[in-house]
Structure formats: structure tokens, C-alpha cells
């Protein structure tokens, strides 16, 4: 009798745990389906080739705004996008990124480095929004000539804050 009661209790516990798992996991799957972030591809190479305004000017920035990102979030959730570089830029060279924000969100230009930094906050749009990404490459004269290099920019969509 006691053995049957113990067995019944164990089964109830298992059922309880499974239910909890479903309850906890279900929103996560829904979240994954309802919230999404993607980019249109990688930008063309950014190349600084001359001085702004000609002789006497500083190196002219190289700009690329040909790529986009698409984002949407689950109902009643507020998210943000962070950005991070795979490794820091060479001395005297900076890479900045600006993501146009979806309606209701806000964004700030970010000088990229290996630190995770907020680029877009307060994202609440449930419908997918596709928006431009602008990269700006700057260099000081002291940076000198910099051969072709690459960095990976990681965009992460996470809950706010």
C-alpha cells in the first residue's frame, strides 16, 4: 500500500515537472518564433582613399549604408539590439555603426569595439521592420596605411534592459 502511494507520488511529481517544463519552455519557443533578428548580408569593403576636401584635409570617411536588418518582437515584450566587434580596430581607425530604429524604438551611433554596446533600445514592433545599417570608417593620419582586414559584427536581440 505504502509502495503504491510512493509510486503514485513519484508519478505526480514527474507529471508536475513535465507540466512546469511545458509552461516554462512554451513561451521560449513562442518567443523564438515571434521575435527575430536578421541582416541582409555583409557590406562591401570600406576603403579610405583620400583626404576630405582635397589636400590639407583629413582622411575622408568611408560610408556604407547598403545593408539592412529586419527585426520583430513578441507581443508585450520590449527588446534591444546590442552590437559587438570580434576584435578591436587598429590604432587610429574607428568603425561606427548606426541602425535606423523601428517605430517607437530609439538608437544611437556606436563606435564598435569588443564591448557589447546597445545600438537600438525599446524595440516593441510585432510586425517585421526592415531598416538600414550605416557603417562609417574613419582614420587619423597617424593611422597610416592599413591593409585589408576584416571584423565580425555580432548583433544580439535580447530582452530590455
Amino acid at each position, binding site marked *: 500500500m505504502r509502495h503504491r502511494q510512493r509510486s503514485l507520488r*513519484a508519478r505526480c*511529481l514527474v507529471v508536475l*515537472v513535465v507540466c*512546469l*517544463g511545458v509552461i*516554462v*519552455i512554451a*513561451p*521560449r519557443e513562442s*518567443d*523564438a518564433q515571434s*521575435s*527575430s*533578428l*536578421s*541582416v541582409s*548580408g*555583409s*557590406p562591401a*569593403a*570600406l*576603403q*579610405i*582613399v*583620400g*583626404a576630405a576636401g*582635397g*589636400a*590639407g*584635409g*583629413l*582622411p575622408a570617411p*568611408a560610408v556604407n549604408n547598403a*545593408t539592412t*536588418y529586419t527585426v520583430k518582437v513578441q507581443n508585450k515584450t520590449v527588446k534591444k539590439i546590442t552590437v559587438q566587434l570580434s576584435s578591436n580596430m587598429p590604432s587610429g*581607425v574607428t*568603425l561606427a555603426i548606426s541602425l535606423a530604429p523601428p517605430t517607437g524604438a530609439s538608437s544611437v551611433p556606436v563606435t564598435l569595439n569588443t564591448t557589447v554596446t546597445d545600438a537600438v533600445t525599446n524595440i516593441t514592433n510585432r510586425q517585421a521592420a526592415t531598416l538600414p*545599417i550605416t*557603417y562609417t*570608417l574613419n*582614420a587619423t*593620419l*597617424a*593611422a*597610416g*596605411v*592599413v*591593409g*585589408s*582586414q*576584416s*571584423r*565580425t*559584427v*555580432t*548583433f*544580439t*536581440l*535580447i*530582452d530590455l534592459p
Partner: protein
Amino acid sequence: MKAVSLVAAVGAMLVSHVAFAQTATQTVTFQVDAINEVSVSTANTSLAINSAVAGSDPVSATSTGLTWAVTTNQSGAKITGILSADMPSGLTLSVALTAPSGATAANSGNPVALSSASTDLVTGISTLAATGLSMQYKLDATAAAGVVASDSRTVTYTITGGA
């Protein structure tokens, strides 16, 4: 013990939920080319010799108010000047460029005679951008040059990058 394991499992599920994040990546390729640019403030200037002090060669003519500018992201760049054709016999066209900070003007900043052979005018220019640097042309003539009708030459300035 089992209860503890189950609680841990539930905890892990909760943590898994909280840590949800989605990522995307882009690869950004970049480079900075050698930048060596030089310019002058005006494309044309005229010089006329029309007097002399008795007993001396004609008085030289000089330009005023001209400037030049330079940008380089390299070290040890230099400016050279070259004429499109040599000057007539007895005439000398010279130019003096003020050196930017850290660089050296040829001939200690005094005018340097130009010809159809390339001539160093400023050397040792390193990673700088400078504008409004003064430049001055000087036209000299010997008495033997005689009367020379209006003529023109093109002066080409070239910046050669260092390292």
C-alpha cells in the same frame, strides 16, 4: 535527492528561458590606402619684369598671396616641382615653399630654380594635413635675356609618399 534534481532541472529551464537571445552577424572588411595630396591656391599667376636699377640686372618679379596645402598619412613624403619646358635663356623661374611642421624646405626656404627636371622642394613630410602654407614665385632675368614676349609654363607639383 530526487527532489533536489528536479528543482535543479526546473531551475535550468527557467534560466534557459531568461537567457534567450537571438544573434546575427556581418563581416566588415576595411582598409586605409596611402593618402598623398598636394594643391596650390591658384592655377595661374603672372610675373612681369619691367624695370632695373641703372648698373644692375633687371629687378626680379615676385608673386604674392599664394599658398599651398598638403595631406599625407605616410612618413618621409616629399614635394617636387617640374616645369613643362625649360625657361628661355637668361630667365629663371624659382619657387619657395614654406615647409609644414616637421618638414624641411629645400634651399633653406629660399627660392629654388625650376626646370624641366624634377626638383625637390620640401622633404620629410610626415603624417600631417596643412593648409595656407605660403609659396612664392620669383622671376629673374639677366640683361642679356633681352625682351621676352609673354610666355607661360606649367609647374607640376608632385607629392611622393614615403613609408
